[in-house]
């Protein structure tokens, strides 16, 4: 495991009470300030890994480390960890404790023992960060699914974590909401928050992440920089993931000599590359 890792998993095994496997010797590490995506089939162990990251589960073998030290599962140790690592569940209904947006976001900072004025500042800042300032007075049951997810993120952001874990944050969101969410993740990463999220959307993971971690049957098959994904197709297939659509399209266009060999990370980048190549195409349409 890398010495500079913020969060590390060293051969972590997890068996549930019914005997089913959660993780099977899973090892990976998360660098500070990086954007990480976990990719894998359903049941690959993505959610289990995230639950281990905040100490909600304890490995049956192996260990989880935060800043190079094994997690302390005492009450005080977990309290310290959870001040620095926040988890947003896939289903917002699972996370929202209060019926009021403002109250729910204030829950974490109040538990940090901050004075009221400081809590109010943090709540306002967190609501502004997720674009929900206008909804502060509303009841959570009046919000849309996407807005509820944002309230969950605000509730975690108000605790100012160093590491944000998100379990399938794009699940259940429509196209425009996914784009808004991506912009929000971009903004959070820009603030220096380390992000680890699980997703089934390989196009998004390739576009957004610095590091990709492929999970299969409780193991981490590989971790590599996202830009290396075009060279990791076999591993991607082993993790049950399709190649990002932009890579398939780019390959065809590169074969036709319309684009350079270096693959773009997104459709927008591919279109921009095509626009750049357009003058040449106009001069030589054949």
């Amino acid at each position: 495991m890398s010495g500079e890792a913020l969060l590390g998993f060293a051969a972590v095994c997890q068996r549930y009470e019914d005997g089913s496997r959660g993780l099977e010797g899973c090892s990976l590490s998360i660098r500070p300030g990086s954007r990480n995506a976990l990719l894998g089939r359903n049941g690959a162990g993505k959610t289990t890994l995230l639950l281990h990251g905040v100490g909600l589960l304890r490995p049956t073998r192996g260990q989880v480390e935060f800043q190079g030290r094994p997690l302390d599962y005492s009450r005080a140790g977990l309290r310290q960890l959870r001040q620095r690592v926040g988890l947003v569940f896939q289903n917002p209904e699972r996370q929202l404790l209060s019926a009021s947006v403002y109250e729910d976001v204030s829950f974490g900072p109040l538990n940090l023992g901050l004075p009221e004025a400081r809590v109010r500042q943090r709540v306002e800042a967190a609501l502004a960060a997720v674009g929900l300032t206008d909804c502060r007075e509303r009841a959570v049951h009046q919000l849309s699914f996407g807005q509820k997810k944002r309230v969950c993120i605000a509730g975690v952001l108000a605790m100012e974590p160093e590491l944000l874990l998100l379990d399938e944050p794009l699940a259940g969101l429509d196209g425009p909401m996914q784009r808004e969410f991506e912009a929000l993740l971009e903004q959070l990463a820009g603030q220096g928050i380390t992000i680890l999220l699980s997703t089934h959307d390989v196009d998004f993971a390739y576009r957004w992440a610095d590091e990709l971690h492929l999970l299969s049957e409780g193991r981490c098959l590989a971790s590599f920089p996202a830009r290396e994904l075009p060279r990791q197709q076999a591993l991607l297939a082993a993790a049950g993931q399709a190649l990002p659509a932009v890579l398939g399209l780019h390959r065809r266009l590169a074969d036709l000599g319309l684009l350079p060999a270096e693959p773009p990370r997104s459709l927008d980048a591919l279109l921009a590359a095509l626009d750049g190549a357009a003058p040449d195409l106009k001069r030589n349409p054949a």
Partner: protein
Amino acid sequence: MLIDRCAHASPWRRISPAAKGLFALAALLGAYLAPSPGLALGLASGLALLTLAGARVPLPDYLRAAAPALGFLALGCASLLFSLGGPEGFSPRLLPEALDPAVRLGARSLAALAALLFLVLSTPLPHLIALLRQLRCPEVLLDLMALCYRMLFVFACVFRDGRTAQAARLGHAGAWRSLRSLGLLAAGLLPQVWLRALELHQAAQLRLGDGPLRFLAPNFPRARQELAWAAATSLGLLLGLGALA
């Protein structure tokens, strides 16, 4: 749900809950102290008008919110007014001597109901819970209130989804099937309650909530002025009722 919707839609939701609570308390006291049924009915009408015109609660919603309480009230008054039994068995008859207490009880209860409706239809429940917290209500009771209130909507949603899924597979085609489906739904909800309780506990733990559920209520920047207004109005109301007595 109806009361919650009205409270969140009311422009008076931004008024300090302490001020509205004080006024509602004074109105309740006024209902109790009202010297005549006429005055109690006048107070009830005034409070209803205030809720409809001031707090902008639509009349149909107001009547629907009041209907169950009015039903109980009608039943209570009827039980005072009529005697069902006698030496010769079941023989309902009107008791003329009970007319006066029944009218007095009905009028006072209407005024008290109007006072409570004024408060709950203009104040979202989280604000009322925050007010109770300020008044040093026991934490465990407030935690229960907050969780029950939240769960009410979560389970209403689960119930609705389950019922829709059953209806889509003809689960409610006919009275017998409907009854069976309802039973299955109720049975299915029980494990969901357990699961949800565990999940909420974990969610609270993740945000360091291992004690009482503490939340911060929204700020009411004009709370002092509003409380002063409410105190003056309440005093005026009670003095007015006293003078008319």
